[in-house]
């Protein structure tokens, strides 16, 4: 190549470095090999996954654990479509991911070429924005813009599709200028008048509560939430995504509310006269049937996305802005103007103690149960960054595994993607090597991306995986039992697997636990071990996970069998 010249692929790698990329999770193919060629001369680490879906979830897990934008890459066609579930997962939970896909050369686009797919068309509904780059000088400004969009305002994935000939095209190393995005101005500063009104409403409230959602984590506002609660001394409930927004050990934390919420948390949400909703979109798993949700309650709704306000529930007082901007200002105002009358905290805390007892099931049986296993592991990992998969174990983990405030609970809340857990945990472990990352998964979810154990072994990370192995899809069986005619043929696996042996074959350490003492032993061994440990927890036929809303509102709960 002549002096002073660059190529699209080189410009891409340079732009990724400039954006602060440390790691790319990727998989090679015919249409992205020029990028791999350019990547060899870069300081960016490449994690070779075993499936593109794994790459997308790893980038997502990396982003959730660190707050930095995760990057994944795949080739055209099937490589790109394999990213789709991961991109949709990140989109539903608002995490910043830049996904780079190779595309067939420009002259071939539209001809149904080998491994051609319209990935920008496919991903419009699951991205904040996407690009099909048309020329090499456009590569650098497009990547810069993609990172800006993914990591500002409401976080979201962005897809950048780069035709192979754009990657190889030489150009005079003069990049196009970045456009001005006239239509993109997220509101981050909360309106002072609205914040003043919120303070006044809080002062008058008699039964106020706080709902924390995933937005608190996105905004890195967990300390602001702690200060807010400290000033108000009112109860806090959380959505699935907002679990680690506030220290789970704090007595004022009533835990998960909603479809699988505790009676105390659901009572608080149902009987309150003022909800301060922080970074939640009032998803249907939280609200239950909308017609009966918080009907006589005023809602102060704080969110960076104005479209979330009034979408599912009417907001009495909207505050559009970054939580990390709004909350400290509201707290400061309350410190000077006074705090609510708040006549009900004591009663709720009493109810919390009672309802929590109801969740400690399984402790009398000699056999291992999910609650018992979670208890043992949470004791062995008091500072865990907990990652879950999707299913019954996920709800148990949300209810029974306390975590500290911060980026310490990672789960697929919106899309509910089985198979998310392992790759997300790998991404989290790479983002936060100083943390003790624990994955809780089930035998159904784990099998969906189990190939990534190889990636985990190669990456040299520390990770503890807890597989709740009951040879069945527990959540599906619970739904079939509750709402269908209880035919379990599709939710029962006839082939029993030994994940400890599988793990050993895939380059990890395997352990097995069938009793409480075995899980205690295995958990403490894993806590001090290097590398990846997979603990196969043999769970017998287990009771369903309760509470569960079975009626027309959040208080029509089924709390347990017999």
């Amino acid at each position, binding site marked *: 190549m002549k002096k002073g010249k660059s190529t699209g692929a080189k410009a891409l790698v340079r732009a990724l470095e400039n954006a602060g990329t440390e790691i790319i999770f990727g998989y090679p193919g015919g249409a992205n090999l020029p990028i791999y060629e350019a990547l060899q001369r870069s300081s960016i680490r490449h994690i070779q996954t075993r499936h593109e879906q794994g790459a997308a979830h790893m980038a997502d897990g990396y982003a959730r654990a660190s707050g930095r934008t995760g990057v994944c890459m795949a080739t055209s066609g099937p490589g790109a479509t394999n990213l789709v579930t991961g991109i949709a997962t990140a989109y539903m939970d608002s995490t910043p991911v830049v996904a780079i896909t190779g595309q067939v050369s420009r002259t071939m686009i539209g001809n149904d070429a080998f491994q051609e797919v319209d990935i920008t068309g496919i991903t419009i509904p699951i991205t904040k924005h996407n690009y099909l780059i048309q020329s090499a000088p456009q590569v650098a400004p497009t990547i810069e813009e993609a990172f800006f969009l993914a990591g500002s305002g409401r976080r979201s994935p962005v897809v950048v599709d780069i035709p192979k000939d754009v990657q190889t095209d030489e150009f005079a190393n003069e990049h196009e200028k970045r456009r001005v995005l006239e239509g993109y101005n997220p509101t981050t500063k909360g309106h002072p008048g609205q914040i003043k009104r919120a303070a006044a409403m809080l002062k008058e409230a008699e039964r106020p509560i706080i709902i924390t959602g995933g937005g608190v984590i996105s905004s890195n506002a967990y300390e602001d939430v702690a200060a807010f609660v400290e000033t108000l001394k009112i109860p806090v409930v959380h959505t699935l995504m907002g679990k680690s927004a506030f220290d789970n050990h704090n007595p004022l934390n009533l835990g998960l509310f909603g479809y699988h919420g505790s009676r105390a948390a659901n009572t608080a949400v149902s009987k309150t006269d003022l909800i301060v909703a922080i970074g939640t979109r009032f998803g249907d798993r939280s609200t239950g049937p909308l017609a009966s949700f918080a009907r006589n309650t005023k809602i102060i709704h704080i969110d960076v996305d104005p479209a979330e306000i009034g*979408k599912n529930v009417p907001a009495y007082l909207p505050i559009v802005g970054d939580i990390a901007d709004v909350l400290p200002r509201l707290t400061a105002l309350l410190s000077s103007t006074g705090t609510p009358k708040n006549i009900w905290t004591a009663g709720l805390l009493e109810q919390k103690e009672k309802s929590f007892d109801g969740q400690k099931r399984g402790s009398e049986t000699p056999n291992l149960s999910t609650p018992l296993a979670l208890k043992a592991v949470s004791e062995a990992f008091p500072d865990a960054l907990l990652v879950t998969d999707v299913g019954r174990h996920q709800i148990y983990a949300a209810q029974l595994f306390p975590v500290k405030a911060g980026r310490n609970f990672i789960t697929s809340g919106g899309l509910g993607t089985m198979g998310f857990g392992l790759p997300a945990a790998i991404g989290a472990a790479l983002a936060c090597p100083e943390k003790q990352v624990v994955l809780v998964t089930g035998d159904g979810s784990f099998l969906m991306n189990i190939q990534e154990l190889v990636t985990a072994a190669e990456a040299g990370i520390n990770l503890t995986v807890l597989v709740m192995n009951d040879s069945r899809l527990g959540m599906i069986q619970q739904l079939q039992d509750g709402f269908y005619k209880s035919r379990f043929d599709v939710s029962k696996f006839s082939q029993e697997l030994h994940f400890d042996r599988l793990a050993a074959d895939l380059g990890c350490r395997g352990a097995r636990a069938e009793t409480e003492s075995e899980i205690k032993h295995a958990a403490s061994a894993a806590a001090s071990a290097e590398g990846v440990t997979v603990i196969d927890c043999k769970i017998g036929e287990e009771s369903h996970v309760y509470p569960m809303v079975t009626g027309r509102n959040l208080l029509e709960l089924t709390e347990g069998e017999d």
Partner: protein
Amino acid sequence: MKHTISILCDDIPGVMTRISGLFSRRGFNIESLTVGHTEREGKSRFTIVVEGDDGVLEQVRKQLQKLVHVIKVWDLNNDRILEREHALVKVEVHDKDRAHLLQLITVLQARILNSSGAIWVLEITGDSKAVDSAINLLGQFTILESIRTGKIALEQGRK
């Protein structure tokens, strides 16, 4: 209830898909859609008529505003709106009806774009109601073909 929304956006490939896809994805129904260039180079303006209550309209507006290429969204449902639709109607007219049709054309302020023998192509411009009633009145002749645009709309005054 029908709402007229005006969208100013970047005039680039794919913007149509992003906007129309958003409507179908979120379950909003498009009654009509027109798009064209504006006084600003590189920008185009959509006029979309959508059916729904105020809550639906609010969501439509906010979701559109989130599209990166959308610069501004206006809800044009008030009495300061000037709106026009355009229709071309091909009618077959027999000699005995010719005088009657000419009279109607004058009343409707329609224009004759083309007449070859008994086949006339008429042009009609007006607000939705005017175009509706014009086509309705022309129905007494034989309408061979007709086509109408969606609505375009602007607000009175400087802004």
